[in-house]
């Protein structure tokens, strides 16, 4: 094989490697910021083991009303030293049968929340396992 053919072969192999490399490059992280405005009365329901705390309201994206949320927190006397509740918040999309559920914890000391997306409807499946952090009024999804 002469050097011209060898060069052509190498160029071709290089090109293949370039494209293969492109598809293994990390893709860009996305973020999504939702604001939560409670419209129902925050309700505490006590029992022998601890307390349920229920709330619900509207979800906004940069001031645009995009859905509603339903949230419940479970406080256990067994975990009282950490001053945190197990949290589950479901965002119900305003239009269509779409939803996103976040599970994590709520810290009563500062109102901060940490967790991830644990379930979604099919339309939002790309958000599954997204990291979620913020407060009960504002959550950032990083996926």
């Amino acid at each position: 094989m002469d050097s011209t053919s060898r060069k052509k072969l190498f160029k071709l192999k290089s090109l293949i490697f370039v494209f293969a490399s492109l598809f293994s490059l990390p893709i860009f992280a996305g973020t999504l910021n939702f604001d939560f405005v409670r419209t129902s009365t925050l309700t505490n329901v006590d029992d022998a083991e601890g307390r349920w705390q229920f709330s619900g309201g509207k979800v906004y994206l940069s001031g645009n009303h995009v859905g509603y949320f339903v949230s419940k927190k479970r406080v256990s006397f067994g975990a009282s030293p950490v001053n945190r509740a197990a949290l589950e918040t479901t965002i119900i999309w305003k239009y269509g049968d779409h939803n996103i559920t976040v599970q994590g914890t709520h810290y009563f000391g500062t109102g901060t929340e940490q967790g991830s997306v644990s379930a979604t409807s099919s339309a939002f499946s790309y958000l599954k396992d997204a990291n979620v952090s913020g407060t009960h009024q504002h959550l950032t999804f990083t996926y």
Partner: protein
Amino acid sequence: MKLAKSLTLATLALGLLGIGSITGSYLALSTIDFNSLEQRISQVENRSTLGVLADEIKLLKQRFDELEVNITSHQDISPLSQSDYSNSLADLEVRQSKLETEFYSLFSEQELQAESDPLSTEVVNTQDDNNDQVYASREQLQAGIELLDQASLSGALDNASMDQLNIIVEQLDRESKKRFWERMFADLQAGKYQLPDKDSAADYYELPNSEVVGE
């Protein structure tokens, strides 16, 4: 004895002639294939100079140019077969086409160039992609984006369009869903339109007293 020697020489000559003709035809075919491949490579190279990946391609090509000098001086590359090259190239063209339609179409070139901060470690697995599904999903995504374009222009997203979008989004693959929602979220954040107030499929109701109200 002479006859046997002549026969052996004749057989050898015929054998050599046969091998020569086979090799010749193979080489001729190879040259044609290589010329054709070269044209296709340059086409793919031309297409790949668009958008956000241009810089990465450029950098990688610089590295390969350096490597090429090293390797051609040492003469130690192991050539792949013709079919390997053809198949790889065809695969590249499919991926490149997918990249252009699913990625480039959603962003302007400036936006693509500005995206240069890789934060996620998620890797797109293109090995298992079913081409038919990818193409179908791409078409659906395009239809969805067109509806969003119309809404952006008119400044309103009506119930009929939203119903259509809900159907479309269910048919998209994971990556296309991501692209679709990213586009819609960007539009909503930019205030180009708002979601309709009432879901045409939903009823307003008082607090339910059973799992299916009205049963």
